[in-house]
């Protein structure tokens, strides 16, 4: 499955988002904050950090990485792609 699609589905299931499908999440829209269609907040960021570690074995342990990676699905996929085996 394409990485972006997989990320969207994981976010929906792990963050228990209701009334949202993968198709509703835009690739370049903000994931967090008032401008986000998903309405994620800092508590959801805790889930996302643990999710990335559990699913991909990838760490987001500092502010600069989080700021770069957690902007949108595009940025998250770009951050993950070189760190995980493609298949």
């Amino acid at each position: 499955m394409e990485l972006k699609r997989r990320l969207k589905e994981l976010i929906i299931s792990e963050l228990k988002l209701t009334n949202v499908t993968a198709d509703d999440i835009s690739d370049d829209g903000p994931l967090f904050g008032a401008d986000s269609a998903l309405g994620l907040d800092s508590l959801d960021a805790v889930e996302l950090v643990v999710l990335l570690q559990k699913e991909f074995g990838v760490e987001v342990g500092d502010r600069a990485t989080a700021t770069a990676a957690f902007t949108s699905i595009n940025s998250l996929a770009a951050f993950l792609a070189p760190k995980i085996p493609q298949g």
Partner: protein
Amino acid sequence: MSGRKKAPRYGHRPGHRIFHWLIRCFGVGPAYAVLVFVIGYYVFFRPSARRAAGEYLDLTFPGRGRRGRLRLTYRYYYQFGLCLVDQAAAGILGPQKLRLDFPDDPEIRRLDGEGRGLVLITSHVGVWQRAIAVMEFMRRSVYLHLRREAASESMGLAGFEAAAPHVVSPDGFLGGVPELSSALAHGNIVAVMGDRGYGSATCARVEFLGKSAAFPLLPYHLALTTDSDIVVFLTSRAGRMRFRLRAHIVRMTPELRAMDKNEARLLLLRRYVGLLEEHLREHPLAWFNFFDFWAGS
């Protein structure tokens, strides 16, 4: 929760210098004596200081007349001043001068042995900064979720002998939450304030001293998501340069793990608020949180 701070900043640089000079030259005694007049000035001539303490004191000591309230406000700020002088003395004379009685708790030793993450919840009581240093025996990294200016004021007092804590500012993107989550996942200690949400912290309203107040949910969400245990630290002043520390351990049980996360968060929050209320019943003049805590209730 942005909240609004009701209290003015206490003191000014020349005033602080006088206190520092007194402590360095003569010890804390004369500083306590000068405090009598300084507190009098704030309580009688600074209405903002009276307002900042008003709601907490009204809820804790209801039904006081104007005079009784003024006396109470004075006693309250004097207790605050004593803690500030003791903290300043620890910074000037060395943290070892400040005695913190903390009974050796086998349960905390057990937590250390398990090596899981630990959420340390502190509150605006006593010398919480010093309390964090108690966990140094665990030889794990401590991440302190606190504004940098507040951290730089208090770190000299915390008394860490080995590694100083990593300060993670709650300001900026996601309030430093990714760093805290990662730290816990690696079995480290994250210290957060339980009675103040910074920046855009997500809060829940619960009854506190009989009135609805907003508390941050982050400590409980961190613990539940990273499967970490919780230790609530509450300190109280026991005398000249002497404080007592009580630790309350909240284990991450299978029941908590199985619960709906929203319900579990609220349950843990209510447990913390219950512990804080119990502590304040015993030490009613020891909560120094000059903040519009009940705003919007």
